[in-house]
């Protein structure tokens, strides 16, 4: 018997496709991967974001669900180009599915591409989709212990949106404890409590998107300038 050493990343195929997605999406479009448990308010957040940014930033959306085109219908009603991916039971999106969806979106006329992953706080985190940032959406109704119970999602997030802030007076949930739990898992994630119903806190989220887009475009220009210098 012989041992062949490999040390191979099992997800290297997905990671390679994600790198291709990154190239196609390009340096001018901010790509976000929204991850949450079902019912945290991802689709509502996208609706509110689209409405608030109308006339300022152009959105494109990829919706992931096990079944139905219900979410795509809601997003399309906001006048946003959207592709629905049905995973037919699959618990997460993979880069190859994003790759297949990209040609159906007018990327040349978009500033922000939002992927709404399948509602699931566990499985999506291992699958790079080519995004610039993972955003976890949690909500007060889920309790303040979810970051500790589902650490991987929170660990990988650049930002955490805490939705349903309007319900705080009715829930035995401590915002302090929730923020403390998120920070214990991931001290770099920007935490943004908001309510998609009242609009409270939404402006911080919109600002985060604006800043992330500006940072990406600046980085892209920097890279292009460096590449141009190297050619000559």
């Amino acid at each position: 018997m012989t041992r062949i050493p490999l040390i191979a990343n099992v997800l290297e195929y997905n990671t390679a496709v994600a790198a291709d997605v990154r190239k196609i999406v390009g340096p001018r479009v901010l790509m976000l991967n929204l991850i949450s448990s079902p019912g945290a308010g991802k689709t509502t957040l996208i609706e509110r974001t689209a409405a608030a940014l109308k006339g300022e930033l152009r959105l494109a959306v990829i919706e992931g669900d096990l079944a139905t085109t219900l979410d795509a219908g809601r997003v399309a009603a906001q006048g946003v180009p959207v592709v629905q991916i049905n995973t037919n039971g699959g618990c997460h999106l993979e880069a190859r599915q994003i790759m297949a969806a990209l040609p159906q979106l007018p990327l040349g006329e978009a500033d922000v591409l939002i992927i709404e992953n399948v509602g699931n706080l566990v499985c999506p985190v291992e699958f790079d989709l080519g995004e610039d940032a993972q955003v976890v959406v949690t909500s007060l109704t889920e309790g303040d212990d979810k970051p500790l119970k589902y650490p991987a999602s929170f660990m990988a997030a650049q930002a955490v949106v805490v939705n349903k802030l309007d319900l705080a007076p009715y829930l035995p949930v401590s915002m302090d404890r929730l923020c403390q739990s998120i920070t214990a898992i991931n001290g770099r994630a920007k935490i943004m409590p908001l309510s998609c119903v009242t609009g409270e806190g939404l402006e911080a989220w919109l600002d985060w998107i604006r800043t992330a887009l500006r940072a990406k475009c600046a980085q892209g220009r920097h890279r292009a300038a460096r590449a141009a210098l190297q050619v000559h």
Partner: protein
Amino acid sequence: MHELSITQAILDTALRHAEQAHVKTIRALDLRVGALSGIVDESIRFYFEMVSRDTLAEGALLRIEVVPPHARCRACGAEYDFPFEADVAEAWLAQLGSLERCACAQRAYELSGGTGCYLDSIDVE
């Protein structure tokens, strides 16, 4: 249930390397799975039996090492062993708080590592 696609990826990776080496059988696979990866080793075993049928890896032994996460100092980036207990989420904050003070004199930690899934080696004949 994402283990099905991950197990398929494990098998594909193993088969690709086995075919490159022109071997007849894969006897065993050594895997490292992050404790925070959300990948359940029992599911991998279950699906592996299914997807490896009629391949070079049918009946192969799976040796799976679960890699615990570390605590990382937010100030200087130094990493420390972290006594991770998957079932005691409530104790995490306390555990992080009770870690020895980092050499840089800060006392702020966060989790690091413990993700991903790697195929370290295959035993072949």
